[in-house]
Each structure stands twice: as C-alpha cells, then as structure tokens.
C-alpha cells in the first residue's frame, strides 16, 4: 500500500483530507473523455449545451410553459369532467319530465268526463241565479 494516502495524524492542526486524497478524488471525478482529450471534451460539451440553449431560444417563452402544459391539460380534463357530471344532474329532471310526457300519454278515466245533464257545481248555480234575477 502506498504511503501517499497517509492522512494527517490526529495531533495535526490541519483538518484537511490531504493533497494525495484530493488528487485522487479530482481524478475520479474527471469526465472519462476529458482525461485523455480535455480540450475536445469541454468543447464538445459546450457545443451540446449551446445546441440546447439555441433550441430553447427558438421555442421562446413556450419552452418555459411546456412543463406546465401537462398539468394544465390534466386540470382542464378534470374540470370538464366535473362540469359534465354537474350539468347532467341539473338537466336530468327536465329530461325525465319531457320523456314521460312523450312515452306516457295522459290517460283520463271515464269518471272524470262530465255527463250531460249532470250537476256541475258553480255552473248550475250561476244559471239559477241569472233566472231568478231576470224574472
């Protein structure tokens, strides 16, 4: 095992993890391609970033709204669904009445029809009163 990774002894003032370990971490966190061709790697990453930036710029303010579009769509669907249910419940009694009016024609019983000569309250009284007054 190498001596390079010896950490500062506990009595030492420095709290640092030590330069050898720092170097190893830096090496471990170097992008794979950047180790061999650093200039090419960083130029390539810059191109990819700027390609995305240009794409975003072309889309303009729409790009900022895209993440909200899905949420808006779901919300709008839910609102339409609720409105549809409420509307259906409100119009149902009218429809029922209209339906019944069509499929159940009014059936009147024979007993409801006035019979000729039968006493009809009000009508006969008025006629009698008119007769007495005129004589």
């Amino acid at each position, binding site marked *: 095992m190498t001596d390079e*990774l010896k950490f500062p002894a506990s009595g030492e003032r420095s709290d640092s*993890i030590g330069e050898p370990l720092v170097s190893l971490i830096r090496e*471990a*966190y170097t992008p794979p391609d950047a*180790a061999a061709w650093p200039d090419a790697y*960083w130029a390539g990453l810059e191109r990819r970033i700027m390609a995305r*930036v240009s794409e975003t*710029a072309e889309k303009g303010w729409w*790009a900022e709204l895209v993440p909200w579009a899905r949420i808006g769509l779901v919300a709008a669907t839910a609102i339409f669904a609720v409105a549809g249910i409420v509307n259906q419940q409100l119009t149902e009694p009218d429809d029922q009445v209209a339906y019944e009016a069509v499929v159940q024609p009014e059936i009147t019983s024979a007993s409801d029809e006035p019979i000729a000569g039968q006493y009809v309250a009000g009508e006969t009284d008025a006629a009698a009163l008119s007769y007495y007054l005129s004589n």
Partner: protein
Amino acid sequence: MRIPDEEHALAKAAREGDQNAFAGLVRLHQRRAYLVARAIVTVHEDAEDAVQEGFVKAYQAIGRFDTSQGFGPWLNRIVANAALDIARRRKVRTTEELTEALKSPFRNPAEDAELKERLAVALAELPERARSVIVMHDVEGFTHAEIGEVLGIPGGTARSDLHHARLKLRGLLKDMRDDA
C-alpha cells in the same frame, strides 16, 4: 465580491440576448459546474445531464440575473438543484453501479486499483451532502459561504458538515491508513 471584467461583460451581453456571450459564460464555468453536479450525482452521465439542464435553465432565467453578482455562484446553485432532482430520481441506484462509475475515469486501472476502489466505495457511501461539501471545498476550493449558497444551507452549517464529512471519510478509509 470582485467579478472579473470579462465575466461581467459576458453576463451583461447575455442578458441582452447575445448567445455568443452566453457561450463564453459556458466556457468559463462548465468545468466547475460539472464538478458540482458530479459531487452530488456521482455518475458521469447524470452530471452531464445536470450541467446541460442547469445552463438551459440559467439561459431562460438570465433576465432575472443580477449582473452586479457573480455568475458562477448563481449558476452553480441552479446546476446543484438540477443535480439534486436527478439524484432524487435515481435513489434506487446501487452502490455497485456507483463504484463502477467512479472507477471508470482512471487512466491506468491496474495502478493502485485496490486503493481507488476503496476510495470509490467510500465516496459512494458518504451521504450526498457530505460528499458534495468535501468535493466542493477540498477539491474545488469553494468557500463555506459559496457552498452554503449552492446547497441552500447557512455557511456555518456547510463548515460543520465539512468537518463531519471529513471525519466520516477518514473513518471509511481508516483501514487504508492503518495499512499504509
């Protein structure tokens, strides 16, 4: 904070919609941004995604950027947030995958292979914030205040986190030290 003239000019021009100026800011800051992202997500591909996402978000928000402030800390905060989002989505990633991802950049795998593998495992075992604080401070030279700004914690907390993170890393690598 003293802002370099070049960065100040680029940031002002980028705010006015100059894409070439923004490319200049990318050139200046992409390496540090990559390291910030990598410290959080540990995997190269995820770090690249976070950096790209961070720069795109920075471009979209450049109109709200205060040019009297440094572009770097502002950008790194955005990149760190993008990396944290990715890290949350990738919580299921196994330690083995992380170890492989950390091993891959070494140019000579045979050299100090055991040492590097142990370091890779130790870094992967560190909590996300502890790892980020160590990498940002000890490797990249961020101040406690800058780390606090990037991670959204007070500078004093960053200092305390750094102390505990170093202790934990030393603990994880203790047998390595004893062997040496």
